[in-house]
């Protein structure tokens, strides 16, 4: 089943309450996905600085922090439950290589100039509390509540998936050709950390974006290459896009006002958003890419 949610702010009015809005939506979608939850928040870029969202798993924060010294230069390190956000101006390729090589038990959840990602197993209401999502501010955000079908209930098996700079993907549905596609993408140098189908779709999108295709073109191409059921929300630094497969079994509803665009699997997740009753509310048509800010 799974629940997916997203908000893109069109004005600055709600930036400080983005976390609260997204948190309420995720908690409401707990009924669609009680196994794990995760969210990506896009914040304003800080000059030339990259942020790395890492899950420490069983490694202690102190130990990680100590060992990180001298490996590469970082300007800040922020602990949030079992996740950390490391900020650095170093080359991301170098940083990612060092983290992968030195810290075997650490999972790289995502990186970029704007994105911060947190995900963990457990009921969505507990996960959002653990990371204190309500306190976050930002320009747009995407979230997911998971009912596991395709792979195990682990942090790596939770959404959102990020396989490229400032990119992320959440998915309601299942893909049937992900093994073949994974093999092909691995040849193109895309790394995968799980057996999950959605991670393959995220890798597929990253692969196309890196070959200079736009997000809209990439998703349109995906209609032919990705076999299965899906409603996707894919986030980039500037905004997000929504795509449902052409059969359209997986639900989605969009509410748009002058201040924001919100999307969720069910309307009830958005029922508490400001002025939602005067919003333009519609169901995205299957097979059509909807995007904002991109």
């Amino acid at each position, binding site marked *: 089943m799974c629940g997916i949610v997203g908000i893109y702010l069109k004005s600055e009015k709600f930036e400080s309450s983005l976390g609260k809005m997204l948190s309420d939506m995720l908690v409401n979608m707990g009924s669609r996905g009680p196994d794990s939850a995760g969210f990506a928040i896009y914040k304003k870029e800080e000059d030339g600085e990259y942020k790395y969202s890492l899950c420490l798993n069983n490694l202690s924060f102190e130990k990680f922090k100590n060992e990180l010294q001298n490996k590469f230069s970082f300007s800040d390190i922020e602990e949030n439950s079992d996740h950390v956000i490391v900020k650095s101006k170093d080359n991301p390729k170098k940083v990612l290589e060092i983290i992968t090589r030195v810290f075997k038990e650490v999972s790289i959840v995502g990186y970029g100039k704007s994105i911060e990602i947190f995900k963990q197993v457990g009921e969505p209401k507990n996960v959002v509390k653990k990371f204190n999502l309500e306190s976050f501010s930002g320009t747009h955000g995407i979230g997911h509540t998971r009912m596991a079908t395709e792979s195990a209930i682990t942090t790596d098996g939770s959404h959102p998936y990020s396989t490229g700079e400032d990119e992320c993907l959440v998915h309601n549905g299942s893909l049937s050709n992900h093994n073949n596609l994974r093999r092909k993408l691995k040849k193109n140098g895309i790394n995968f950390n799980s057996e999950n189908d959605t991670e393959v779709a995220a890798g597929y999108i990253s692969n196309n974006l890196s070959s200079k295709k736009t997000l809209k073109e990439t998703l349109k191409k995906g209609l032919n290459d990705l076999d299965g059921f899906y409603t996707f929300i894919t986030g980039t630094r500037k905004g997000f896009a929504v795509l449902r497969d052409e059969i*359209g079994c997986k*639900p989605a*509803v969009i509410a748009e006002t002058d201040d924001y665009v919100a999307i969720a699997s*069910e*309307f*009830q*997740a*958005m*029922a*508490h958003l400001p002025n939602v*009753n005067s919003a333009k*509310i*519609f*169901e995205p*048509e*299957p097979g059509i890419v909807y995007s904002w800010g991109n």
Partner: protein
Amino acid sequence: MELDLKKINLREVNEKLQNLDRKQNQRDFSIINPEGNHAICAGLTEEMNVNIKGHVGYYCAGMNQKANITIDGNVGTGVAENMMSGKVHVKGNASQSAGATAHGGLLVIDGDASSRCGISMKGVDIIVKGSVGHMSGFMSQSGNLIVCGDAGEALGDSLYETNIYIRGKVKSLGADCIEKKMDKKHIKKLSKFLKVANIKNLKAESFKRYGSARKLYNFKVDNIGNY
């Protein structure tokens, strides 16, 4: 009587309406703050008027009998699914599978309905003032599906004896669905429906009629080799 879903929980509201107290002469209800809840007004069996003020979730007014239910907003998947009688009026848009498997009654949707509107309908009359999505009328068996706007792909796929009237464009017809001639009796019947739904600006003559070619659901001895 006003029922506030912020104050009373959904199950209590539904139970109250499902077990109407006949001693009290109260048959007019309005439900406020529906906030996208699922299965609001499912399983009503008595004559009453219910006005839901806001957007609702899945299976609103499912299995309805006799009740007259108006939704002043959008509805989620499966509005009036398996309705037996009565009337359900959606003032906004409907999600997929509106009126699915419904046996009777009238479903009016002022906006658009998405995919699979009237899937497997068994006698209900559905009037959509906007457009319908793909696979509408799929395997529909009986009743009337009237669409004032356009229809998506594979309209009426594998249908039995439902009459489909579309005023706008049909993207494609499904298997065994064909356009049929509009006779006087069809125009008369359709005009009645338009009147019921308070549609004054459209003429029955401007609709096209679709139905089953009856080649798919009858056993044909010539096809024996295919079994």
